[in-house]
Every structure is written in structure tokens, then in C-alpha cells.
């Protein structure tokens, strides 16, 4: 096997290798990790951040960033819970929540694509507006739910697979297909790689970008719906800092913040690494302060490892 090919393959599976290492280390350190209960816990815990990260990954690949996803989670949670309380119907509640996220994403996308103002600023503003609106509407009070069917969506499971986990798998398959197998996906990569060249090549940059941010908003509101079901209440205080977790998952998964690079499956591995690590540190009874340090080190190690292999690929080339 020639060297370049070896490193190409290594790069593809680098994050997966890191995940395996964490899992193997856990296997030796505690017998609590590989239990049905715990694995199904981890599955449920990672699925929300993972779904959120899919949208973030698309945005990052397109060369942007979306800081409003956390607030969209909170807002759609409130919309979903209040409509569910007043109507008792799941479908209109979920539809309204998804429409909220899609709408905010659409506004983000149009503003970013049309004005050319940095996505960082636009989404930071919309984030602040959304979280303010959530507080105005709820007076910071959570909305408790007693709808059993809806609760199942977040807390139930099919055999040993929790529903949020199944939902996550569906989302990943769909969006991986969208990004890898369609023209749209290739355009998103192209825009992130070189926006000017994309315009010259006749790609409708404004339209593609708007769709990317809309989808990101939609996935954020889906995440909000799942959280609402999981907590069995609409909680105004959730969502804070979730954008950072989503960005972290995408970056561990190989996404580059300068755009054009990254992948949906890589992000899944990234989200699993974060989730497994959190779970592992809790199982090992590591104090919260140390957890932050360890998480930081692992993220750094993952990114350095990826970078190390990437330079190998280029130098062997």
C-alpha cells in the first residue's frame, strides 16, 4: 500500500479511532459502561446534540457559523409546549415548533446571504432576540406537560433503542445523502471552499446559503421538540451554550471553521465522543471541575491528531 493512501485512510478514520480508544479505556476502568441501560442512556443523551450538530456542520461547511441554534432550541421548546397544552394535539404543536425554527433560520439565511454581514453577527443578534422573546412570553416560567404520548417521543424506546436515537439515525442518513449524493451538497462544499469561484461557476450562492441556514434552524427546532418531550416540559432556560457543543462536535468530526471541509458522519462520531466522554467521566466519578479539563484536552487531542494526519496526507502527496 502506498503511503499516501495509508494516510488518506487514516485521516478518514482518525476520529473513529479516538472514539474506540475512549471506549476501550472505559471497558477496563469500569464495568458499568457496557450495560444495556447505560448504552441506551448514552444513545439518548447524544441524540439531541447530534441532531443539532448536523445543521451546524452544514453551516460550517458552507463557510459560516450559526450561534442562534441554542435560542431556537429554547424557543421551539416553548412554542411546542404551549400549543400542546392549549390544544392537546401533538401534530400542530410539533409543526408550529418546526415552523418557528425554519422561520428563524430563513431570516438568518436571507440576512446573511443578501447583506454579506458576518454570520457571526447576524446569528448572535437573532440569538439574543429569540432568548429575549422566550423570557417575555414565559416570564422565565417553565410550562409543564402531562401529555403521555408526547412524552414517549423523548423518553420511550423501541426495544432497546430510544426514540430520540432512532430519530437521530434517520436524520443522519437523510442529511448524509443530501450532502454527499446531491448537487446541493456539492454546492455547499464549493461555496465554503471558495465563494467567489462558486459565484463565477454560476452556483446560486444566495439561494443555497439561505437553504443551509433554514435547515439548520429546522434541525435546531427539532432538537427543541425532542428536549421538550424528554423533559416533559417547555423550559425557557435550556439551550444556553448548546451552539458551542454543536460546533465542537462538528470540529472534532473534521469540519474546518474556514469552510469547505467536514462531514455529516464525522460529526456523528464527534457528537458520540462528547457524549461518551461526559458519560464516562460521570461513571468514573470524576469531579465537575476536572471534567472540564479532561473534555478540553480530549477535544484538543482529537483536533491535533486529525491535523497531524492531514499534514501527512499533504506531505506524502
Amino acid at each position, binding site marked *: 500500500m502506498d503511503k499516501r493512501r495509508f494516510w488518506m485512510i487514516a485521516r478518514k478514520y482518525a476520529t473513529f479511532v479516538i472514539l474506540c480508544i475512549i471506549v476501550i479505556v472505559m471497558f477496563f476502568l469500569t464495568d458499568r459502561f457496557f450495560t444495556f441501560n447505560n448504552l441506551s*442512556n448514552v444513545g439518548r443523551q447524544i441524540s439531541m446534540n447530534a441532531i443539532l450538530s448536523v445543521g451546524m456542520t452544514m453551516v460550517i461547511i458552507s463557510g459560516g457559523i450559526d450561534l442562534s441554534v441554542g435560542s431556537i432550541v429554547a424557543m421551539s421548546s416553548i412554542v411546542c409546549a404551549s400549543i400542546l397544552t392549549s390544544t392537546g394535539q401533538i401534530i400542530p404543536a410539533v409543526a408550529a415548533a418546526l415552523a418557528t425554527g425554519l422561520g428563524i433560520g430563513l431570516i438568518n439565511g436571507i440576512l446573511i446571504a443578501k447583506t454579506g454581514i458576518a454570520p457571526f453577527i447576524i446569528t448572535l443578534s437573532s440569538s439574543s432576540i429569540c432568548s429575549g422573546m422566550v423570557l417575555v412570553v414565559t416570564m422565565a416560567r417553565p410550562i409543564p406537560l402531562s401529555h403521555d404520548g408526547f412524552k414517549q417521543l423523548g423518553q420511550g424506546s423501541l426495544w432497546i433503542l430510544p426514540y430520540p436515537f432512532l430519530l437521530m439515525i434517520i436524520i443522519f442518513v437523510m442529511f448524509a445523502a443530501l450532502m454527499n449524493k446531491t448537487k446541493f451538497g456539492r454546492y455547499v462544499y464549493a461555496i465554503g471552499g471558495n465563494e467567489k469561484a462558486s459565484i463565477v461557476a454560476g452556483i446560486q450562492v444566495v439561494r443555497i446559503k439561505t437553504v443551509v441556514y433554514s435547515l439548520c434552524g429546522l434541525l435546531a427546532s427539532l432538537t427543541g421538540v425532542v428536549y421538550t418531550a424528554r423533559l416533559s416540559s417547555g423550559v425557557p432556560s435550556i439551550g444556553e451554550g448548546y451552539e458551542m457543543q454543536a460546533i465542537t462536535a462538528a470540529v472534532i468530526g473534521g469540519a474546518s471553521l474556514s469552510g469547505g471541509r467536514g462531514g455529516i458522519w464525522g460529526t456523528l462520531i464527534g457528537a458520540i465522543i462528547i457524549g461518551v466522554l461526559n458519560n464516562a467521566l460521570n461513571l468514573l466519578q470524576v469531579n465537575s471541575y476536572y471534567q472540564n479539563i479532561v473534555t478540553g484536552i480530549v477535544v484538543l487531542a482529537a483536533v491535533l491528531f486529525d491535523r497531524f494526519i492531514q499534514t501527512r496526507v499533504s506531505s506524502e502527496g
Partner: protein
Amino acid sequence: MKRKLLNVVLCVAVTASMLAGCGSSNPQDATVKEAPEEAPEIQEDETVQQAPEESAAYNIGYTCPTLNNPFFVGMMEGAQKAAQERGITLTMLGGDNDVTKQVQQVEDFISQGMDAIVIQAVDTTGIVTAVTQANDAGIPVLTTAETPTGGDILCAISFDSYESGFNGGTYIAQTLGEKGKIIELQGVMGQETSREKSRGFAEAIADYPDMEILASQPADYDRAKAMSVMENMLQTFDEIDAVYAANDEMALGAAQAIEAMGKSSEIFVMGNDGTDEALEAVSEGMLGATNGTPGYIQGYIAIDIAVRHLNGESVPKVINEKNTVIDKTNLDQADKILKAVSEEDWYWLDQF
């Protein structure tokens, strides 16, 4: 090629050893362990289980809203003290003020097979799903501070927030000679403890016809916010006699704003909690008083009650904690009052 392979292997090894290192060394620093390695085996040993005296090694998980706040750090120290005395293993986690994170932590506690779980919830509605999961797993749940809105709670340990506010109002009224104008700094809008403190405070003041609350403003228990709210108040009102803040952080922020205006001698500031910094401020005269609600004792009680339950003792559903106002007169006793956990101080046993 070989050397590069070696590089990869080294990289992998470094990562692995980093993780392994965290696993094996941190628990000793971070959690209180009598017998870190033997603990699981002891539980499986039937002869030990039959004698659940002081020697039984229990595992207790405790999740609190955050560990970046002096109140919760004090609570952690109190809980650790109780755990150490009773020879149990305590895992204390902070939830970054995010209820979903706390739910995960409780789920992890359940996977871990904790003998008891103590929860101080960020959100009393959102945490219910975690409480019911623990109930289903047959693990007793205790809570400190606000009680979750559902699920089975073995024992709820809390300060009566209404009483805290009432204490504060009464103390200020008496200090001012039952006549004066007050600014109230509330906690987080819509939060139950904030509401209750505020209600208690208002009702205490209502008993004094010559006392007037000029304004009630939320400052989110945050020092910087309280400082700017107070700056605005000082601009708005010419005559302010006292400030009542629902926690010490806000009281310190307000006191700083007042000091910057050179009005420290005119305005009496009272806080709530009894943090170390507040006590120092009382001794310097920056704060007039603070209503002590010691987190240290709260953490201690939670572990004490949990262990009593695990040892087969029956415990009450509710424990009311004591407030104590600390001012210049009892300041030298403050440390003793706020960390009073030796056997003669176990006042909560009277509530059994």
C-alpha cells in the same frame, strides 16, 4: 513508513494514557473515598451487607446547579465532610445551570448503581423525568432547596424562602427604627425561591406603616447586574435608607455602587446567604447584615439523612433549615454558626 506508524501508535498511546490517568488519579482528589478500589466488592460481600452499621460503603451521587458559586462550593464541602465522617463515597457534580445536563447526570448515577441520589435542581419541572427514572430504578431521591414538581422524593431539605425574606424585612425595619425607604433587589424573575423571598420581604415590611418599598427590581442574583441596577436607583431616588438584596452577591454589587456614590454611611445594605465575602464586608461595614442560609450545613444534612435512610432509619419527608441573621454583633461566631455540624448541632433530628 515504520517510523510514521510508530508516531501514530505513540499518539494513540498518549491519548489513552491521558484518559487512563484521569480515571485513576482524579477520583482520589475529586471525590471522597474511604476505600476507592475495594468499594464495589464490599457491596457484593454478603457478610458486610448484613451489618449495615457505619462501616457500610455507600455510593451517593449529588448534582447541584453549578459549582462556580460560593454557595454551592460551601454545600459541596459540607456534603464531603458528612461523607468522610460516615465513610461513604460521594460524587458531586455541577450542572452548568442546564437542567438537561442534570438529567443526564442523574441517568449516569442510575447506571452507576448509586445507593442514593441527591438533587438540587436548576429547574423543578424539567428535572421530574430524572426523578421518576430514579424512582423506577428503586433509588431513593433526596432534594435540597426547591422541590421538584413531581416524582417521589424521600426527603426534601430546604430553607423556607418566605422566612428568609421575612427575616430580612423585619431585621431592616427594626434597624431603621421602623421608618424608612427601601430598595429591593430580587433574584431571578419567575423563579420560585425568588418569588417567595420577595413575598416574605413585602409582608414583613407591610407590618410597619412607616416603611416604604421604593422599588423592587430583579438582578438575577448577579453582582454586576445588581451594581448597575443600584446605580440607576441612586440616580432615580434621592433618599434611600436601605437595600434588601435576595442574595449576598447582589448585596455586594449594590454596596459597591453605593460606595462609588459616597453614600455608604447613609444606606444600610442587607444580603442573604452568609458567604465568606459577605461576612468580610459586614466586618468592614460595607454590608449591614446578611441572613445566613448556610450551604455547608445544607450539604451536610442531605448526606446525613441519606445515610440514615440507607441504614434503615425512617426519615421525615421534609426538613426545614434554619436561617440566622449575621451582623456585627455575632460576626466573630459566624464561622461556627454557618458550619455547625458537630453532633450537638444536629437540629434537624428534632424534626424526625
